[in-house]
Structure formats: structure tokens, C-alpha cells
């Protein structure tokens, strides 16, 4: 796109750009609102509930109390130093917005700010992507890239209204940081690199994935140095960015001294050292003869390399530098997590990506992406090297972990926009029609007709593909990424839409009917939700900072009732919460997650818990009569299926998730726990630990005695309410 600098054309272009941006922002925000319109303004999933709770704490108690927050309502009895172990960027941003709106006389509920936070920031992301792509090619490509990133499902997946998560703000900051970095590196401007460093600081405060920037920018510089493209501009921008960025990032309590002590950050430090040497070398080069310089360079480089590598090894060996963190390490050695850290492998986001996921998240951008990278290679300016390094690195990461699709999507949009805009540069130019030939007459011959046909055809097909892309994105967003997963959509038998609201029902029950300091044991997935919605103390939550503590809950769930009772009693637990989907067919329930509980606790107590004991002799994972005795005795099994068969009026019930028959004699009776609440569709079941027997009997014999006594008395006849089951 040719840009005018003055005159009417300039104003028309500016107006058009503003109009385009307004519509892009409108599209970005509105396509993220499906869930608000369909359900309500509600926080989604798991992690957002913690962020929401932390934001409320921040708004209520102020910034300093927030930084010193010790949370005694999670990880009972350990507690969590929440203020020092979270990335505060997200909460402080929304609190700032809340205060700002209050100042200008618009008091908005903090929940609505949290829900609408991600859609609002997606507009900013689009603008940053526009600026970045304009630096890579031109503003035409920039507009396309902004349009792509605004509606690409790969980014929407983590930024719909209600998904109040670190990623929602992180992608915006990622693009802004990169935009400033490219500007700084092109111009050598200290101001721009300072901005890059400041936004890097913001990013560090918002998301653990900041390590990606910490490694990508040095990689860019390193490749440029290898290509012999050292310049003073590069030196100025990198050293400024590194010095300010590193010092600033160390101000975040959770990060602290990591930037100089962890291996994840050593590449940046190494490149910082290297660029000093190269700068010195280029100074020497301007002073001495070429032969002398070569010897000096060779000797000093070899010496420094050996010194640096051995120094790194020694420092790591003596523990001054932390080795790679587990999550980071599992990216390179893909089997590492599976063997050493089951808790990482158990998260579904950490699974490798199959090809349909790439296509699902980016549609036709995925095949424009390699074409765009190739086109950048043909020019290969300094900033193009950055895009290429980013593409290669993130393609690998996204292949290894599904969740890193998120960081790949922006660069796919940029590269695809470059490709499409180059195509439009060549084929959308119809100015020749209005051109006049030398003799002043309109030139409209065969030549012009052929050219018109060609250009209409090619650009026409691509405009059609763009239309299809919009439809695809809307369909994916509406069907796959707009469910809050706290409320589940469903259908009544007559086909009318219905909502399954069991989670909130049960959490509200907990909030209203239990003591304020009651402790609830559940699998870690539900920790944040219990904390956020029910406001009760939990043993473990989604923070997963203490593997042993999680293993304790896992052990309790996989042990027989009496042992589990001992474990839970020792941890002051009052209630046990299990998620059971067998009645309604909800497949993400605890029985399906149960093997992970077994595996994680086997990692700590290999002598007591053995995974193979939970399989049938032929190695199957079953819950019906064929299940192993260990499985049937496990607390999780008993709590999930307690009284389930009697619901069907006979001695057998059918589990709709696993399609197996549950017999009453396999489930048995509960001796140490009593059921206190079961939600409408049985998804959430709550049990209370019985108090110790007043007569000093053990609970098993006490319950057996009670049951025997009850059998003797005549059963009261009561009419059961009619149960209607939903599909």
C-alpha cells in the first residue's frame, strides 16, 4: 500500500484506517461475547476463579496488603504465600481500570471488569499486531494481520469474555513488546528499547511465559551476529533492553533473583556478554590490520566460549544457578514429564498437538504461514530474521504442547498477512484500467481485458477464502470456545435447551450450610472453584506448588475407606467433594481422572499404592463387577457410586460415561462417611466425615451395628419423588 504524506489522500487514508480499526475492534470484542449472551456474565473454568478472587482481595485491601497476602484458606494446613507466588500483572491492571472508572464516575462491578477484560485487551492486541506487521512489511499487511489476530480462534480460545486468565493480557503485552523491540532494533533508538523493556517488565508481572521473550530476543540478536550483521544500533537497543528489562523484572516478588540464577535466563545473559565482545572486536577491527585481528578474534572467542560454558556447568553443579525448571525442560525432552512429573503430564493442556488442532485454530492461515515465511526469507532484512526465529521456535513448542498454540497464533497471523498482502499487491491493482496511453485515448485492448480477468479471478478467490475464514472463526468460537465450563449447556428430552448448573448449586450449598472454617478435600482441579465460589478452605488447588500435598489427597482417594478416614482426619478435613458424571454422562469426572490420583500418589508411596492393582487382571480400567477389589474398595469408587444403583430402583445402575453396569454389592456401604449433599444431576457429591464414635467403637463396627438395628425396625413407607432423567 502506497502511503501519502499530505493532502486529501492522506486524510482519506487516515479516516479509512480509523474506520477499519473500529470495525476490527468491534469484531474482536463481539465475537468474544458469545458466552456472556448465552449464559451470563460469569467467570469461566478454574484458574480465572483464583484470579478473580485475588482481584477482589486487591480491590478490598489495597496494593501493599495484596503483595503481602498470606492465604490460609488454601493448601491447608500449609497455606500459601500468595502475594509472593503469583504474577500480579493481571490483577493490578483490572484493579487500575476499576479505580479509573470509579474516578470518572462510572462505578462498575469488579466482576464485570474481570469478565470483559480479555475482549477489551484483544482490541489492543490487534493494534499492536498492526504496528508490528507494518514494521515487517507495510501498513496494508498490518491491517490484514490485525484483522486475522482479532478473530483467529487460536487466540480467542484464551480470551473470550469470562476467561480471566494471565494469557488474556500476556498476548497483548507480547505483541507490544515485540513491536517496540523491532522498532528499537531498526532505529537504534534508546527510547524505543526502553519502552520494549518496560513492556517486558509488564509482561513479566503478568505471565510465566515471559521466558519466551527472554529467550527469543537474545536468539534474534545471536542469529544476527552469526550472520555478520552487527551494528551499533543493535548494540544500543539490546544492551538497553537487557539492562533495564532484567533489573525491572527482578522487582516482581515471584521472579526475584531468577534472572541471574536460573538457566532459563542464561541465554539472555550470554548474548549480553557476547555482544560486548563483538562490539569490542569491531572496535579493534577498525584499529589494526585484518590478519592480526583474525588471530586475536579466534583466540579470544575460543577462550571465552570455554570459560563461559565451563563456568555455567560449574555454577549449576554447585547450585548457584538453578537448572531448567521442570515445565521448561519437558519441552525439550518430551518424555521427561511423563516419567518424572506426572502432575505436569496429567494436565490436558500439556498434551502434544495433532494436526487438526492447528487447522481448527487458524484455518487457511496455516498454509499461508509457510508461504509467508518463505517470502520473508527472500528479503531477509534484520527484522525478518526475528519473525523467522519466532516462527520456527513456536512451531516446535505448539507441536509439543497444545496450550502453546496460543503463542504461535500471532506469528501465523503476521506471516499469513504478509503472504496475502503480497498477493493483493500484485493482483488487486486495477489502476491500469484508468491509465491513459501516450496519445491520450483510453487504452482498453486485449491486453487490458486479459489482465483484468486474471486479477479479478485471483483476488476474487482469495477474497472468497477470507470470507470463509470469517465464517470458520465464528463457528469455532461459538461452538468450541464459548462454554464457561462452570455451567454446561444441555438439552431437555423435548429438545429445548437447558443448563446444567450443578457446580454452582453445590458450591452455594457449601457456602450456606457449612461452618465458615470447614475444610473441604477434593481433587486439585476444583480447588480454585471451591475457594472462589464456596469460600471454603481447601487442601490442594490448581496452583499445584506442592506435589506431596496433592499426593496425600490422591492417596486418600485411592485408599480403602478406613485408611482414607485416618488420612483425612489427620488433615482436619470436614467434607469430601467428588465430581461424578455417570448419571448425566459428563465425561470429565473424577473416576476418569482417578488413575492420575493413583499415579501421583504412587510416585510418593510406591509401596502402598500400585497402579496395576486398579486394573482388571486383563489390564483394563473397569468400574463394573469385573473391577479389581482394590478399585472397588477405593474411597473414590465408593463415594462416586454410593447409592447410585438404588436410584434405578433395582440392584444395578448404568454408568453413562463408561457404559458399564454398577452393582449394589460392589459399591457396598459407607461406614466412615455420610452423604450430605448431591446436586440435581449428581455431578457434585458432598460427604461429611463422621465424628468419632461416642462409645469408643471404631466406626466400621458402629455403622454395622446401626445398620443391623435399622434392619430390625419396620421400614417407613415413603413415596419417592418421580425422577426424570435427562439425556
Amino acid at each position, binding site marked *: 500500500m502506497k502511503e501519502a504524506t499530505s493532502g486529501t489522500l492522506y486524510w482519506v487514508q487516515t479516516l479509512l484506517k480509523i474506520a477499519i480499526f473500529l470495525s476490527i475492534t468491534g469484531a474482536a470484542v463481539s465475537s468474544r461475547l458469545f458466552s456472556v449472551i448465552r449464559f451470563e456474565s460469569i467467570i469461566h473454568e478454574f484458574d480465572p476463579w483464583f484470579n478473580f478472587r485475588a482481584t477482589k482481595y486487591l480491590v478490598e485491601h489495597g496494593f501493599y496488603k495484596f503483595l503481602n497476602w498470606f492465604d490460609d484458606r488454601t493448601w491447608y494446613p500449609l497455606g500459601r504465600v500468595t502475594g509472593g507466588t503469583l504474577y500480579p500483572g493481571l490483577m493490578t491492571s483490572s484493579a487500575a481500570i476499576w479505580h479509573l472508572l470509579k474516578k470518572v464516575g462510572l462505578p462498575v462491578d469488579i466482576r464485570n471488569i474481570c469478565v470483559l477484560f480479555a475482549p477489551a485487551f484483544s482490541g489492543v492486541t490487534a493494534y499492536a499486531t498492526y504496528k508490528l506487521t507494518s514494521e515487517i512489511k507495510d501498513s496494508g499487511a498490518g491491517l490484514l494481520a490485525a484483522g486475522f489476530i482479532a478473530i483467529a480462534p487460536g487466540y480467542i480460545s484464551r480470551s473470550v469474555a469470562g476467561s480471566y486468565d494471565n494469557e488474556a493480557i500476556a498476548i497483548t503485552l507480547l505483541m507490544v513488546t515485540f513491536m517496540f523491540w523491532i522498532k528499537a532494533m531498526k532505529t537504534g533508538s534508546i527510547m524505543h528499547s526502553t519502552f520494549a523493556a518496560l513492556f517486558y517488565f509488564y509482561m513479566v508481572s503478568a505471565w510465566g511465559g515471559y521466558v519466551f521473550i527472554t529467550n527469543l530476543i537474545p536468539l534474534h540478536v545471536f542469529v544476527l551476529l552469526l550472520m555478520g550483521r552487527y551494528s551499533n544500533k543493535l548494540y544500543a537497543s539490546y544492551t538497553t533492553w537487557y539492562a533495564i528489562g532484567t533489573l525491572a523484572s527482578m522487582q516482581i516478588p515471584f521472579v526475584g533473583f531468577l534472572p541471574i540464577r536460573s538457566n532459563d535466563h542464561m541465554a539472555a545473559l550470554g548474548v549480553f556478554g557476547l555482544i560486548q565482545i563483538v562490539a569490542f572486536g569491531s572496535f579493534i577491527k577498525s584499529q589494526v590490520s585484518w590478519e592480526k585481528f583474525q588471530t586475536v578474534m579466534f583466540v579470544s572467542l575460543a577462550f571465552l566460549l570455554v570459560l563461559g560454558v565451563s563456568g555455567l556447568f560449574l555454577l549449576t553443579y554447585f547450585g548457584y544457578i538453578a537448572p531448567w525448571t521442570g515445565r521448561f525442560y519437558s519441552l525439550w525432552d518430551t518424555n521427561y514429564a511423563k516419567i518424572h512429573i506426572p502432575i505436569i503430564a496429567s494436565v490436558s493442556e500439556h498434551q502434544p498437538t495433532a*494436526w487438526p488442532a492447528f487447522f481448527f485454530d487458524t484455518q487457511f492461515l496455516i498454509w499461508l504461514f509457510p508461504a509467508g515465511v518463505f517470502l520473508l526469507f527472500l528479503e531477509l532484512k534484520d527484522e525478518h530474521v526475528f519473525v523467522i526465529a519466532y516462527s520456527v521456535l513456536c512451531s516446535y513448542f505448539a507441536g509439543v504442547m497444545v496450550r502453546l498454540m496460543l503463542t504461535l497464533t500471532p506469528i501465523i497471523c503476521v506471516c499469513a498477512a504478509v503472504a496475502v498482502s503480497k*498477493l493483493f499487491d500484485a493482483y488487486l491493482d486495477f489502476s491500469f484500467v484508468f491509465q491513459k496511453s501516450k496519445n491520450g485515448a483510453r487504452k482498453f485492448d486485449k491486453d487490458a481485458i*486479459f489482465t483484468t480477468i486474471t486479477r479479478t479471478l485471483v483476488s476474487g478467490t482469495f477474497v472468497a477464502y477470507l470470507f470463509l475464514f470469517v465464517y470458520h472463526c465464528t463457528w469455532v468460537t461459538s461452538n468450541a470456545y464459548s462454554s464457561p465450563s462452570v455451567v454446561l449447556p444441555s438439552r431437555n428430552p423435548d429438545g429445548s435447551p437447558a443448563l446444567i448448573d450443578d457446580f454452582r448449586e453445590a458450591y452455594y450449598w457449601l457456602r450456606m450450610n457449612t461452618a465458615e472454617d470447614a475444610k473441604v478435600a477434593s481433587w486439585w482441579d476444583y480447588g480454585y472453584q471451591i475457594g472462589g465460589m464456596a469460600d471454603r478452605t481447601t487442601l490442594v488447588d490448581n496452583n499445584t506448588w506442592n506435589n506431596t500435598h496433592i499426593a496425600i489427597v490422591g492417596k486418600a482417594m485411592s485408599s480403602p475407606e478406613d485408611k482414607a478416614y485416618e488420612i483425612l482426619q489427620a488433615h482436619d478435613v470436614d467434607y469430601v467433594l467428588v465430581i461424578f458424571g455417570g448419571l448425566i454422562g459428563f465425561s470429565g469426572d473424577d473416576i476418569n481422572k482417578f488413575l492420575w490420583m493413583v499415579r501421583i500418589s504412587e510416585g510418593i508411596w510406591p509401596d502402598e499404592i500400585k497402579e496395576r492393582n486398579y486394573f482388571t487382571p486383563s489390564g483394563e480400567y473397569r468400574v463394573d463387577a469385573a473391577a479389581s477389589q482394590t478399585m472397588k474398595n477405593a474411597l473414590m469408587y465408593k463415594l462416586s457410586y454410593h447409592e447410585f444403583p438404588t436410584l434405578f430402583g433395582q440392584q444395578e445402575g448404568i454408568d453413562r460415561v463408561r457404559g458399564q453396569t454398577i452393582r449394589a454389592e460392589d459399591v457396598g456401604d459407607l461406614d466412615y462417611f455420610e452423604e450430605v449433599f448431591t446436586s440435581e444431576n449428581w455431578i457434585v457429591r458432598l460427604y461429611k466425615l463422621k465424628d468419632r464414635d461416642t462409645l469408643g467403637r471404631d466406626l466400621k463396627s458402629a455403622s454395622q451395628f446401626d445398620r443391623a438395628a435399622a434392619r430390625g425396625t419396620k421400614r417407613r413407607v415413603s413415596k419417592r419423588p418421580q425422577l426424570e432423567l435427562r439425556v
Partner: protein
Amino acid sequence: MRASKFLWTLVSMLTFGFRLSAALSNEKLAAEMVKHKGVIKLNNANFEKIIGGKRDAYMVVLLTASSPQIGCSLCVELEPEFKLIADSWIKDHPDGLSKDGENALFFAKADFEPKRNNEVFMHFNVNNVPRLLFLTPGEGSESYNQINLPGESGSARVLAIVQSLSQVIGINDFRIHEPISWGSVLISAVATMVVTLAAKKYRSEALRLVKTNALWAVGVVFIIILWNAGYMFNTIRGSQFVGMAQDGSMVHYFLEGQQQNQYGVETQIITVIYAILAINMLCLIKFVPYAKKYYQNEDNKKSSSKASMIELVLALTFSASIYLVYSALMGVFRLKSTGYPFKLFKLPSLV
């Protein structure tokens, strides 16, 4: 554990002389093993003799059906793994005895063939394969345990089986010897040497080659396409290459209806599709204008309509090719994602 082992050995030594049934001694089993070159193959004629009676040795028996007609993919997967386990044991213990001489372990196998060894399968009452059976000494072939096959495949499964065998038998000298494929070692050694020598001899050319942008571009783009087509999924999960219909009548190239899963061959198909699309796109952007300019320069004396004509034909070809391959991609994606509503092309007769 230790004491009972000792006791058991004592008992077995005492009863050694009074064997009634015609069980094979360890020496004879070792001879059988040599005859079969490792794993003893069971058939209708020999199985009662080999596994029947009160042996002195532990036996691991694999019942399998690896022939492609039966279409048991797990059997095919298990074949090299079982061979690795057996060979590793035999390599260290040519007579089948453990180092302390207390335990003997032999491997046997029956690969289903209707006439030759169906009785073996009937004997063990097997109606699905593969089964890995474990026979303890001192008992006949009627009492046996089944060894659970771990879910993961490859070396993880081999390791798990060997560990559980070592634990149950009480031996600590069962080591796995991964066979070194000398062929690939030789090839890579020779290749490295050739490359190094060539690089040294043609130094300036090699340097120029390293500095060629196009070469890097093709390499980088190829690796990006490969990763975007799910290559890492195959490496991490060790996906099956292709699927087979239940009756083995037909090969499945796509794992239909599953967005989170794929066969190995899918990556290859998708790589080719993406590559064709990207190449056509590049041709539209770079090659077509170039060709037009070339012809314009060639005959700029005459009218340039020939150049425009060529531009039209080329652009049409590449656009049509993009359209067709892209429709194919959408079609393939519809296979994977049930309920996906969009398509670019409809085959009226086939669908």
C-alpha cells in the same frame, strides 16, 4: 522372599529324583532353545512336552497372531519387543540359568496358525490375543498367570515387563541389550566423513552453500510445515502409522472423527497438502509476475497481449490448483471433525 526362595529350592532339590511326569529338565529346555535359536516355538506336536509337567524353569509364553490377515496391531507391535526381551536374557544367560544358578527362565511363543498350533491356544483357553503368560516352576501348564501388558509401547513397555519379571522371579541380572544397528552407525560414520572431507576440500563452495538463503528458506519452511502437520505428536505418542479395519479388509489412513488424535501417515499427507498450497501461493506471487515481465521484455515490439495471455493461463492454473487442494484439505478436515459445516467442493456422485 529370600527365605521362601531358599525353601523352595530345597524342596525342588528333594523332589528332583521323584519326578513322575515327563517334564523337561533345564538342560533339555536349553537344548530346545538352541534348536529354535532363542525363543522356543510351540506347536501342536511339541507344546505338551515343553511346557507340560513340573519343570524346574520359569517360562514366559507369548500367544500372538502377527499375520496381517488377522489384523491384530498390538500383536505386530509386540513382536520386536518380545524378541528384544528374550534375546537380552539369552545373551547374558545362554543356558537359561540366572547368574547364581538358582532360577531358570525360558521364552516360548506361538504365533497363531490354524493347523499347526491351534491346540496351544485351546489349551490356554485363549480367545483374544496377544496374551503374555507366566508359568512358575513345579507346576504344570494348567496353572499360569497372565502378565499385564503396559499401555505404553516401545522401550517403556519392554522395561516394565522386564522389571516385573525380575521382581516376581527374584533375579537382578536381567539387563536389556538394545541391538546396535551397525548398518546405520556405518552409514552415518561414512556420511560424516564424506561431508567433512568435501567441506574441507571445497571450502569456499561449502561456505557459499551455507550462506545460500534459498537453501535455508526451503529447510526452515519444510520443518515448519512438518511441525504444523503434527509431527511432534507422532514422536511423543508413537502413533500407529495406519489403521486397519476390524476384518483387515481395508486400510484406514485417517483416524476419523478424532480431532485430538491421528495416525502417523496423516502427518505425511497433510505435509504434502500444505507444501503444495504454499508452493502454488508462492508461484502466484513471485513466478507469474516474473513470467509476464519476461515475455513482455521479449516481444515488447509487438503488442504485449501474449504476455497477458500467459499470465492469465498461469494464474488460472495455480488458482485452480489452490482451490482443488484446499477443497481436499477441507474434506479431510471434515473427516476428522464431525459436524464441521463448511466445504468448498461437493462431489455429487460420491457423497
